[in-house]
């Protein structure tokens, strides 16, 4: 397709403008984290490192970070196991109801978070509460794992579609047991997809707030919940801003790693 020079320039400008809009809010958060003015008026009134020191000593933020890490790691571990099993079943076997299984897996992220959130909330209240399991980290992990499964499923599925099944067949023909084939042929071929899927699942869990709100008890505070609670408090605003700035800075790392590891960028929610 011959694209005229004008068209190229116009498309380039649209892309540049789009990216500029994407980054302006993020840069403002970074700037505001060192702004002396508490209310973030524009233009900034001066530079200070005060908020950064205050944030690094904030016990609430540190506790919330720890809770988020625990929830994210546990949910990711469950999602990795369940998502890989499901991807294997759907992409390496033919059975009745295959499409239904994939549809079922997508459902938790296709339905709005608020619906999933209150559904889980209602279920935990009706079923778990009477048997003595209260809301807490456990219920958060169950909620997160449920919608993380599909991320792993997508990543592993995309990879399995690229690995020829003949590789596993050749391995079997050469006398390898199923476990050996998995250990020496299939697993190395999907290792990076597992890592990328796990990373994305973790990120999704780390950022999730709606499902968390409805599945966490009053004492369980993940980082997004901590941010949300403190947004309403004007005097905490600068500290929240620093935490936000830290999240933006930290976000560069996983994208970089995921990009290196996986070229399966086709998947929907990554």
């Amino acid at each position: 397709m011959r694209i005229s020079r004008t068209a190229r320039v116009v498309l380039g400008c649209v892309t540049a403008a789009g990216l500029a809009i994407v980054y302006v809010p993020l840069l403002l958060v970074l700037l505001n984290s060192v702004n002396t003015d508490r209310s973030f008026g524009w233009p900034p009134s001066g530079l200070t490192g005060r908020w950064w020191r205050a944030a690094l000593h904030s016990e609430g933020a540190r506790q919330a970070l720890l809770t988020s890490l625990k929830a994210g790691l546990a949910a990711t571990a469950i999602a990795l196991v369940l998502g890989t099993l499901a991807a294997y079943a759907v992409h390496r076997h033919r059975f009745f109801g295959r499409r239904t299984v994939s549809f079922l897996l997508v459902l938790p992220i296709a339905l709005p978070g608020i619906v999933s959130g209150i559904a889980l909330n209602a279920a935990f209240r009706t079923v778990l509460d009477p048997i003595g399991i209260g809301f807490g980290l456990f219920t958060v992990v169950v909620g997160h794992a449920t919608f993380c499964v599909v991320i792993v499923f997508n990543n592993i599925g995309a990879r399995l579609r690229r690995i020829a099944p003949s590789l596993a067949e050749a391995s079997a023909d050469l006398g390898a047991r199923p476990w050996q084939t998995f250990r020496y042929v299939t697993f190395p071929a999907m290792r990076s997809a597992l890592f990328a899927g796990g990373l994305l699942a973790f990120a999704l869990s780390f950022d999730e707030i709606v499902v968390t709100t409805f599945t966490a008890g009053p004492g369980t505070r993940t980082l997004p919940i901590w941010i949300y609670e403190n947004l309403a408090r004007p005097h905490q605003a600068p500290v929240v801003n620093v935490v936000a700035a830290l999240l933006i800075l930290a976000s560069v790392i996983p994208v970089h790693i995921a990009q290196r590891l996986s070229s399966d960028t086709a998947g929907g929610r990554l």
Partner: protein
Amino acid sequence: MPAAPTPGSRLRLTALLAPPLLWLTLAYLGSLAILLLSAFWATDSFTSDVVRTWNTDNFHELLTTPVYRTIALRTLSIAAAVTVVDALLALPMAFFMARVAGGRWRRPLLVAVLTPLWAGYLVKAYAWRVMLGEDGVVGAALAPFGLHGPGYGTTAVVIVLAYLWLPYMILPVYAALERLPERMLEASADLGAGAWRTLRSVVLPAVRPAVLAGSVFTFSLSLGDYLTVQIVGGKTQLLGNVIASQVTLDLPMAAALSAVPVVLIVCYLAAVRRAGALDSL
């Protein structure tokens, strides 16, 4: 493709499928079933306790109260507007990234689009709140032209939601455009089609499923959102807000209300499924 079933493979299949299906059925479908069931329960107006007596009052109220219809329509229009804005932005950007920019630029551009996805939903919504505020940067940038920012309200909600979900649209469209074989574009040119004709008859049909796949996310995420509305929406009420505010007061009513986005999304999924969008999810 999958091998023919043998007794051994059937056993393995069962072992593979049982854990994920068990989890989804128990933890998710079970929860949805309980939610649906509780929509038919009632709430004691004095104690706010759920009373397990079967009735359809909630659905009756839902269908006959004009406020709910207004809110449902407003939510639907906002979700549709967000989806259209994202598609209009994503098409030229993804086209430039996949087809115009050289190979050396493709990766960095993709990373640039993806990175903000990781910066956190609240962080970004909150950044917009600051930008759209009284003496925010949007107002400051528009002031020289004699213009005002949109302030907090419906317009702000559309802007911020479109901003938040844009990568979910760019990604599938980019992937579809990148996969489009150069031969097809050349063939179109050889047959005498100009750039516009090729764009209309070759490129757009090829990316249609991808746009629909992206729209599942922009549409569904917007339908259920309630935090962005709280942060930049001013007095605007969407379905998500009403549901969220009812959860502790009147769970059965909240459950009945949440049937609205579920029905809308299931209809939407069924519609785009026929267009093959779900295969590119």
